[in-house]
């Protein structure tokens, strides 16, 4: 291995007889191919099919909700709400999700019964994550500044114009279970 690294370094540090344009072209093309493959691979982990491999019951539930099926033709899939959109936040979340591969290998939620038992724990973790990032994924589409209070119900106007506007509360504090059935809410603040 050491020999291989030495050889690799010698080739890197030796002047090439190839034209500078060819070397630049190789680097440019290689860079595009690498970046394309990396992002394609990462996007593959953002698909519903990928999420369904472990979370099939939840993915099925989403199909009945306004976020999936609606009059306007806008659709939010799992990754739209559970994976941050900015690249750096996304990488941190993906690296963190590597822990979930261990859970997959151990079969932590590989049966409906196991999933049902763990559902409250999983939901609480996700609510806590969204509370800590000020419901970042909700705000990718729902912008407080663009809200038309005249189109909202009285209760919504009161909550949005006070608790949400002041930052005292964030979206997920009230909007739990909007795309999934709620787990046992015993002990959850405000429920």
């Amino acid at each position, binding site marked *: 291995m050491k020999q291989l690294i030495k050889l690799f370094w010698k080739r890197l540090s030796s002047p*090439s007889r*190839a034209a500078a344009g060819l070397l630049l072209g190789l680097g440019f093309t290689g860079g595009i191919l690498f970046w394309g493959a990396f992002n394609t691979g990462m996007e593959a982990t953002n698909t519903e099919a990928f999420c369904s491999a472990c979370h099939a019951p939840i993915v099925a539930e989403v199909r009945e909700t306004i976020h999936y099926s609606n009059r306007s033709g806008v659709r939010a899939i799992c990754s739209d709400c559970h994976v941050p959109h900015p690249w750096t936040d996304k*990488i941190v979340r993906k690296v963190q999700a590597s822990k979930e591969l261990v859970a997959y290998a151990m079969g932590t939620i590989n049966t409906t019964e196991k999933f049902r038992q763990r559902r409250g724990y999983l939901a609480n973790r996700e609510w806590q994550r969204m509370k800590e990032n000020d419901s970042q994924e909700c705000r990718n589409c729902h912008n407080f500044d663009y809200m038309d209070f005249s189109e909202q119900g009285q209760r919504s106007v009161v909550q949005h114009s006070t608790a949400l506007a002041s930052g005292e509360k964030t979206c997920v504090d009230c909007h739990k279970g909007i795309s999934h059935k709620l787990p046992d809410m015993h002990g959850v603040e405000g429920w």
Partner: protein
Amino acid sequence: MSTLESIFWHIIGYAAMPAIFVFGFIAVAAGALWILSLGPDRDA
């Protein structure tokens, strides 16, 4: 998520970014060198 867990994942997550770039560079360099070795540049 506990504060300790959050710090752990953020350190690993941010460390992954330069690692991706470095390994990408190594992979592209290795590929480019292999392509060059197929031509008259093999003895360089």
